[in-house]
């Protein structure tokens, strides 16, 4: 059997495409967690982004409004979470769960009128260069702008956290809110900002799913990706570059399903579909086994509320 080298390039490109929503959501959540906040509402924020993007695209016809609108929707829904956990000092885990349940319900409610409507074609960049370099061309060229942004994001995030002053402040707030507060940093403000940023990225991840990856609205279309994104943050030990690796592995698992079915491997389809979830568990076990390493890299105040008496 001769395998066309461009075919391999196409497979890698499709793996990368399915990694995009995971990278976006994980990088957003990573910033939130680095500031000491655990937001389990990723799935809810993503699905809100997905329906908002798709609905705005259908109603206004503008892709830019749709993408920005999805990010704003993510910000708005995460504001609920920020207000509850930061101002009213509620438990992060319970609030995040409420956000996910609420998000899935609201999205299905809004989405009722958008089921079965075909999506629009999303413009791709560098399409003319598609046949220039064997193997690399399908990987490098002909993708949406969100795709390129997603693959730049881990590096931007890493630079932001390590080299910028604001990044340093975010880490300080996550590692020791008390000392950050004593240094005159407004802990709640920083955490609010990080939560809203996470919401924007999750909204974008959702919009990518409903507008670019599979351009249509399907109920519950995030299908657990939000939870896998959360797992990826643990997998990365809060290091954005490692999110890239993790997201590629999970993207690969998703794509493998289709190809295994296509070449007629006799494994029940349900087993292949379950694979990403099972692998997530295995990976989490392997990563977490070394409790010292996890303790060193976890933001020290993760999930703990901070309240300053005036």
């Amino acid at each position, binding site marked *: 059997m001769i395998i066309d080298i461009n075919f391999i390039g196409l497979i890698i490109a499709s793996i990368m495409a399915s990694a995009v929503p995971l990278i976006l959501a994980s990088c957003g959540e990573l910033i939130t967690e680095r500031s000491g906040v655990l937001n389990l509402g990723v799935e809810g924020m993503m699905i809100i982004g997905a329906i908002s993007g798709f609905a705005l695209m259908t109603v206004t016809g503008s892709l830019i409004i749709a993408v920005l609108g999805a990010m704003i929707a993510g910000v708005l829904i995460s504001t609920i979470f920020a207000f509850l956990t930061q101002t009213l000092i*509620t438990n992060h*885990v319970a609030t995040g*769960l409420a956000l996910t349940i609420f998000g899935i*319900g609201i999205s*299905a409610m809004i989405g009722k009128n958008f089921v079965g409507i075909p999506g629009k074609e999303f413009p791709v960049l560098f399409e003319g260069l598609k046949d220039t370099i064997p193997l690399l061309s399908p990987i490098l060229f002909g993708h949406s702008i969100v795709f390129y942004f997603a693959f730049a994001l881990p590096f931007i995030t890493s630079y932001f956290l390590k080299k910028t002053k604001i990044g340093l402040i975010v880490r300080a707030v996550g590692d020791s809110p008390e000392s950050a507060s004593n240094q005159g940093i407004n802990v709640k403000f920083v955490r609010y900002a990080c939560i809203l940023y996470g919401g924007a990225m999750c909204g974008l991840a959702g919009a990518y799913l409903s507008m670019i990856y599979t351009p249509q609205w399907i109920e519950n279309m995030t299908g657990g990706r939000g939870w896998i994104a959360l797992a990826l943050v643990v997998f990365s030990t809060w290091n954005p570059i490692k999110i890239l690796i993790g997201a590629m592995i999970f993207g690969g698992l998703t794509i493998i399903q289709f190809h295994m079915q296509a070449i007629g491997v006799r494994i029940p389809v349900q*087993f292949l579909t*379950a694979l990403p979830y099972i692998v997530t*568990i295995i990976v*989490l076990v392997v990563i977490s086994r070394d*409790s010292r390493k996890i303790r060193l890299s976890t933001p020290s105040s993760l999930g703990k509320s901070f309240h300053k008496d005036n």
Partner: protein
Amino acid sequence: MEEKLIKITKRDQPSKAIFFLTPVLAIFLTLVAGGLIFYVLGFKPFEALKFFFIVPIADMYGFSELLLKATPLCLIAIGLSFCFKSNNWNIGAEGQLTFGAIVSGGVALLFYEQEGFYILPIVILAGAIGGMLYASIPAILKTYFNTNEILVSLMLVYVSKLILDYLVVGPWSNPEGFNFPETRQFSDSARLPLLFEGLRIHAGIFLALAAVVMSWFVFYKTYLGFQMKVSGFSLKTAKYAGYKGKKMIILVFLISGACAGLAGVGEITGPIGQLHREVSPDYGFTAIIVAFLGRLHPVGIIFASLVVAITYLGAETAQIFMQIPKYTGQVFQGMILFFLLASDYLLFFKFKFIGSKK
């Protein structure tokens, strides 16, 4: 210039009265917000709320349906209260329910042509064991491999649903069933008896009540309950006191898994009578809200399960009579939890009016 001053101060101790009153406040606020949402969607708010919360339980049949839905919610929430009280975040009850249903359903199918009084107890026991086995996975991974139980228990929900899907489509599908994704009907001996002729409410409600009594006894009358409470407040204190943390984690997960598994048995041997793709309309997730709304208290959970069960019925009724989308139920459930968490602020802080200042 005159200025009124309100000072927010931390309470020395959380107020006990407010602890049990805030859930009522949360329900009230949910109704107000729900009315607003209906208004925005273009429905008459009061009429919509009436169809949502009153019409469904206005007759005996409706009341029986309410108990039917409240039974699994109460059972699972009781189990979850063991986990949540001791700071273990088992959010995969839906998976434990599904796996319990799979195991008990498998046993029920073994007996599909047989009748006998011994069948039902075996089927019920199998469901509890199935739920326990499934819950033991996050518990063991948490205790021995330091793995986050939230993510593991949640991932397992997806896995369990896929296992069920595989079984009812493939090896367990009814040979005479024209390839429908469902198993054979269980024999009558594997079915929970109905309590009243013509109503769907079944004997599973006694399982839920037994769980309520059991949990009350464990929480307030045993050393284990005390240990759980201490660990919930402070893991450090628990360690200092020398409690066997690992054993307790596994135990609360097993209890919680057994309850979820039993809820699964109740569904398939009660109203459903066979295995098919959808054994539960997300009871396992909704029960998390029930557990919190009931303040992790056995009696509170009974009331909370009834309140939240209405959102299931109301969503159906409102859809039929007013074409209100059925997902409104989930929106209400999310809002109840939001408002409940928000009103907890009153528990820990008090507003003090300190006169006006010139």
